[in-house]
């Protein structure tokens, strides 16, 4: 799976090696920075990173066009047969975000579901001011949308009239700007421009995610076609090492995969 572009030369370190990493845009903060650092530490090795969405990542690793497919969602049933090997690399919580001036601080999962299904349409119905709720949704290629649909929406459908924006940054900036807006983004991308509401009384923080109390969370995956080998294996081990987990993963707002082991979970 690792693409060797050496020109038949046998001496060590003379060949250039590439690890192609494709997939979830949610994982980009991890893969881009760690890939760059890995390339620097291993001369002649390049980690090529691109973000096209989880589904695209899974498709590209299964067709062999990339070595590692990153995904912010679990495999779907029709993807089980691809024989991909799963390496969890981090935890991610999805925060439901509102405008900072919105007095609503706490919603139940049921309320969030009803809001995004278009059943609850005014903030006064959930203890807020008389203000129309503006739903901001992600496009269907988004792994965050997929995870949110699965974890929060259950069988309910998203309101088809919701604004669809094709990126986390766009969702956040619109919600920071519109008083009645509500949306969802990875906890790692929540800034002071917006407020993450508590779900079922639990505020999304690292502790509540690791402890499992915060309900809207998911695992971020590296998928490989079979057991990872060679440089791809080295890169994955590097991502799982404290050098990446305690720095890059944390700085991106994700929770290290190693954090749960530390709690004995």
């Amino acid at each position, binding site marked *: 799976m690792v693409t060797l572009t050496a020109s038949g030369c046998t001496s060590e370190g003379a060949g250039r090696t590439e690890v192609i990493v494709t997939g979830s845009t949610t994982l980009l903060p991890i893969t881009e920075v760690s890939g760059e650092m890995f390339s620097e530490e291993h001369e002649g090795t390049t980690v090529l990173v691109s973000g096209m969405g989880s589904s695209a990542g899974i498709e590209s690793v299964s067709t062999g066009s990339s070595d590692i497919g990153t995904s912010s969602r679990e495999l779907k049933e029709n993807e089980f047969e691809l024989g991909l090997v799963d390496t969890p690399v981090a935890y991610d919580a999805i925060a439901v975000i509102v405008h900072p001036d919105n007095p609503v601080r706490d919603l139940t999962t049921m309320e969030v579901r009803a809001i995004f299904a278009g059943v609850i349409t005014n903030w006064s119905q959930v203890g807020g001011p008389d203000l129309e709720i503006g739903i*901001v949704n992600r496009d*269907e290629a988004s792994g965050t949308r997929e995870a949110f649909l699965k974890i929060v929406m259950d069988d309910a459908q998203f309101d088809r009239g*919701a*604004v669809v924006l094709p990126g986390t940054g766009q969702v956040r900036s619109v919600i920071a700007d519109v008083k009645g807006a509500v949306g969802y983004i990875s906890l790692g991308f929540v800034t002071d421009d917006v407020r993450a509401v508590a779900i079922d009384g639990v505020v999304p923080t690292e502790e509540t995610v690791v402890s499992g109390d915060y309900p809207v969370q998911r695992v971020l995956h590296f998928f490989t076609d079979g057991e990872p080998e060679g440089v791809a294996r080295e890169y994955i081990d590097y991502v799982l090492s404290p050098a990446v987990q305690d720095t890059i993963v944390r700085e991106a707002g994700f929770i290290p995969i190693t954090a749960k082991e530390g709690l004995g979970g």
Partner: protein
Amino acid sequence: MAEPGQTPDAGRGTDPSAAASGLKMMSRATYLREALLKNLFLVCAVVAVAAVALIFVFTMARGWEVVKDPGLVAFLGGSEWSATLGRFGIMPLVVGTLAITIGSLVLGAPLAIGTAVFLSEIASPRMRAVVRPAVEMLAGVPSVVYGFFGLVILRPIVAEMTGGMGFGTLTASIILAVMIVPTIATLTEDALGSVPPGIREASYAMGATTWQTIYKVLLPAAKIGIIDATILGMGRAIGETMAVVMVAGNAPQFFKGLGAPIATLTSQIVIDMSYATGTHKTALFGLAIILFLISMGLVALVRALSRLNAKKA
């Protein structure tokens, strides 16, 4: 070939005395160069035509299967576009495209025709030297810049006016209206310019004011050219993608008012294409076929109108 300006050129590389004595004779080198250029331009034209043909064939080949799955009726008549549910009905997208296109024409066409009248009939040469390049520059602004402007500046203003978040038909129409101004204005100015000066002079000679001349004489005389211009502007509005994706809200629902999010044929292709597989991908190529047919129809309409105009004149 006998134009004096070309004489030195024709003689280059040959015996100077021959060039001097035989102005009307073509040297061998000139003949070859002429033949080469003729064929070069032929190749250019063929490449352009081949590109259109190839795109059409490719789009058709990838998209025709929509007649099998989801089926022509479900595709053309379906009222829901939802990839996750496997529903690919394009009606909401067609309505969305129509709404935004009509909106942009209602706002943009008068603006553009007014600009053209100003440039052609009213502006002083100095004024024209400022306004015309400015209008032409509108055509050169990348659509993502229009979209960004719409998202950051225009959207909050529309949100104040219509309630909601400001994503939707009105915002997209305003942005598109500005984007189609150069197309319509330039072509309308050409149409006004090609009205024979005698007609204009006769009108003024009869004592008509500038406004009367514009309204009663020039605009009717240039009518078909202006309609042509508007149709081409419409083509631009229908095909515009990036700016629309940024401000339309991209909700594939039927038109629910000027301030409600909406999706168009083009915006849906962009939103979906990164992850579409199977029937979904076929359906996206189906959308491309629809867009192709619309644009072919518009070009045919313009050609028919031009022919009508030529016959009249």
